[in-house]
């Protein structure tokens, strides 16, 4: 599994086609490498976990495994929104751990060529930290922000995550 993943990755940096799962947050479109995504589920009951950063919504029971849930709206300092029937939890494997991310809506899987990815613009006005933007994809009608969640949980952040009192 692990090696297969690595292989595909190395290919994708060679300018191959890559597949992205696109999702919406506050009407903006984001993309994430499909290989990172384990599954996409509907909203479930989330158990709040005390003394965690505000963007940690809590934990859920994913078929017997307890995984943390992060609200990407809160993480990116976007406005809070009610959950509706399109709200989804994207379960991903980030630095070896399963985690769920709440997004407004998951739209589709798209294929793009590596070459279409442009470096992120130097100024980013929203709360998305520069580091977790892997690039921007500018296609005729749409603008997609490619996220790198591994970077989002950089060593620094992870320490913060666990020690917040």
């Amino acid at each position: 599994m692990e090696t297969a993943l690595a292989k595909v990755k190395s290919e994708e940096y060679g300018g191959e086609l890559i597949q992205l799962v696109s999702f919406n947050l506050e009407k903006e479109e984001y993309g994430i490498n499909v290989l990172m995504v384990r599954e996409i589920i509907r909203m479930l009951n989330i158990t709040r976990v005390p003394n965690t950063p505000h963007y940690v919504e809590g934990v859920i029971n994913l078929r017997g495994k307890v995984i943390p849930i992060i609200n990407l709206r809160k993480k990116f300092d976007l406005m809070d929104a009610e959950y509706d029937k399109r709200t989804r939890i994207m379960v991903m494997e980030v630095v070896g751990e399963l985690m769920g991310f709440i997004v407004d809506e998951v739209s589709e899987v798209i294929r793009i060529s590596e070459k279409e990815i442009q470096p992120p613009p130097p100024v980013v006005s929203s709360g998305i930290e520069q580091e977790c933007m892997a690039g921007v994809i500018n296609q005729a009608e749409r603008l997609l922000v490619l996220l790198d969640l591994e970077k989002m949980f950089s060593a620094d952040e992870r320490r913060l995550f666990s020690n917040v009192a």
Partner: protein
Amino acid sequence: MAIDCEDQELLDGFLAETTELLEKLDDDLISLEKSPEDADLMNRIFRSIHTVKGASSFLGFDMLVKVTHKTEDVLNRLRKVELTLTPEIMDVILEAVDLVKTLVADIKGGDIVERDLEGTIAKLIPFLSENAVEATVLAPVFAPKEEKAAAPAQAPAEAAAAEAQAAPATPQEAKAEAKSEPAPSQQVAPAPQPKPQPVKEPQKAPAKGGGEDLADNSTVRVDVKRLDDLMNQVGELVLERNRMIQLHSDYQAGLSPADFGDDFGKLSKRLNFVTSELQMQVLKMRMLPVEKVFKKFPRIVRNLARDLGKEVDLVIYGEETELDRSVVDEIGDPLIHLIRNALDHGLETPEQRLAAGKDRTGTVVLSAAHEGNQIVISIKDNGRGIDPDKIAKKALDKGLVTDEQVAAMGTREILDLIFLPGFSTKEQTTDLSGRGVGMDVVRTNIRKLNGIIEIKNEVGQGSEFILKLPLTLAIIQSLLVEVEKEVYSIPLASVIETMRVSKKEFHMIGGQEVLKLRDSVLPLLRLQQTFGCQEVYTDRDTCYVVIVGVAEKRIGLIVTRLLGQQEVAIKSLGKFLSNLPGIGGSTIMGDGRVALIVDPIGLVGGAA
């Protein structure tokens, strides 16, 4: 020098067997010191060493052979009563056995280190010559004239070893060879001796290895019967599953909802039964007798007693009590500390004891027993007990507490001071104690296991440390509580009592909410505040207090409601959420939701 052994399997076999033999050997040697006349025991010890020697020479571990060879010679003389067992001889033999253990550990580690063997061997040699015999034998009841017998006895023994060496296949075979050989050698050796004493019958003690556990913890030996029982239960489970599938298809085929309800009720009852049985079986397979930890104590106590110049009887009860592997692994260190303390601080020297009108020999009782869902381990000595005044004074001297604090403390709180890091009553640091880390380690370890520690003390009569530990760490009994609409689970092992109180009964002392509970004052913690829950019920004037104890500390947790008791399986929160204060893990409830498990250790630590 790296180990060059072609057959890894052979080496593994050797290591497993040797480790087992050596573990047993310690125990046997200590028993032998107590009953030197026990011929069976003596023979068993001799055989163990002999087997180790045979196997190591077969595999070419020269250093091991050297040490075991000399040890065997000394044991041989003891066996034939040419030597009488004295504590000095025992010291040397134990030292040799320790050396053997080190060598075996080296082999296990995969690298043979050149170690100094001569020191130990030099100590063994005097016991092999005639003069030394005269000199060291304190009670020469049996005239030690037949020292020559050592030679003939030795020769066949060596022959046996040679046989073992020549044995071609597995170490098992080598062992069998080596085992069968000493028997004739024993009979041959005494023959030329004109000794009037009865020749010790070489009784074949059955190889004890079978049911015992290996020292290394990566593999488990499970009783075949337990495995069969498990298989049975799994069979039952499969049956119930089939019934469930059947029931569903019946329902789809038009079974009336009422009948379905009935059948489903029965089914869930049976399923409940089968799964709890299954759970028990699996838990049982993880269980180890506490003996695994206890068996190293006679040796430790003996050495300590000799170092300290005290006379001690160690009495062990309940070593067959079983508990979870994870717990067994963790309690060793705390127990060693407590036993050291009992010997070093607790027991007096023989003179002091006589002066106090007690027996010369002090007693330390180590016992284990089941008590409900807990295991209770107690270490009790009949020494001088703990003097609270002395403790208080020491703590003041060390600046661990202030005068006012001490003045406000009851006897119990003062005794608890010994758990403070840096506390020690010894004036001088020895290699035994005095660095002030001991009791702190004990407390930390016990807390890690969700255990409670209690001290019973009577000045002049002795003291007792009681450890209460949960049986297992994977599935726990817990108390489900509600805190403002959120459900939390508190490990039942640390719950002492629960009570319903009116909010009017709370008092404030120094900014801390407390509750007067019988004759003590209990600090309180509002879980709603600690966990930052949104307040839902503002109009209530009564609430529940769950009193939890961690090690020797007590604290009351204020909750909205008690929901009941449930057995829960602990699930990790993953590495991102692993260090949350006050939260020890999570569990999944019947309705599939996640409930967080409160970590009383974190809470008590935070409140103190």
